[in-house]
């Protein structure tokens, strides 16, 4: 992008065609204009591709969820296929995408294994409720991570506000009494 000025005229023409820009001959007096136009278009294009990447992540996560869910219920059959499917899913993004998403999926998978193994053995009623909540939230992680992030943020924020309001009321009462 920054090396447009070092490109040959033919390369500039190819780029203009690639981005569908109308152009005439590239000569000294017109080259600057076309370089500017290309920079604008390329800057816009960069934004678009980055938003596409997040879209792919969502898709992948949806797939992992579908594969993963059944083995938990049938615990006897679970272990073998579960590992295979999850490892397959991890490999797919490795081949398709760059290194950042890859690391992301790996941590996702390991996190899920841990989170599911913990709540299942102890079964008091309170733990079951929290477990189902965890399942729901992690469902949304795989389907739409942005939703989940916003939801989690709202839940945390609501919880913090709730505790804050609870803590504030006892403080207010003695204060008022002092005033009176």
């Amino acid at each position: 992008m920054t090396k447009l000025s070092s490109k040959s005229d033919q390369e500039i023409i190819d780029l203009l065609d690639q981005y569908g820009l109308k152009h005439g001959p590239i000569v000294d007096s017109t080259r600057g204009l076309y370089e500017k136009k290309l920079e604008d278009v390329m800057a816009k294009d960069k934004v678009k591709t980055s938003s596409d990447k997040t879209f792919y992540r969502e898709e992948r996560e949806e797939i992992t969820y579908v594969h993963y869910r059944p083995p938990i219920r049938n615990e006897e059959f679970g272990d073998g296929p579960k590992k295979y499917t999850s490892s397959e899913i991890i490999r797919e993004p490795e081949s398709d995408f760059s290194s950042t998403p890859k690391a992301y999926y790996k941590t996702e998978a390991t996190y899920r294994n841990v989170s599911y193994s913990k709540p299942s053995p102890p079964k008091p009623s309170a733990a079951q409720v929290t477990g189902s909540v965890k399942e729901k939230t992690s469902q949304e992680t795989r389907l739409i991570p942005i939703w989940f992030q916003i939801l989690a943020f709202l839940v945390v924020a609501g919880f913090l506000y709730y505790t804050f309001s609870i803590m504030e009321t006892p403080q207010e009462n003695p204060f008022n009494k002092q005033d009176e």
Partner: protein
Amino acid sequence: MSSTSQKHRSFIAEPMGDKPVTALSGIGEVLGRKLEEQGFDKAFVVLGQFLVLRKDGELFTDWLKDACGANNRQATSCYQCLKEWCDAFL
């Protein structure tokens, strides 16, 4: 469209010959000097640039704004002037 100026009408009335760049409508003293500094001293040199940009209004006005700091109205006026001259004489 907007009414054409006297400068516009006189420019498209005859072949441009060796007219200076300031003969183009939309190009006054200041813009003319800036263009001259870049080698566009005659109206026909600007015509050449106009033609090499394929008579494209957007490209030409963008170039003119870039080259001499013309505003939108000045650039459009110059474009109209050259376009009509081409329609008449090219």
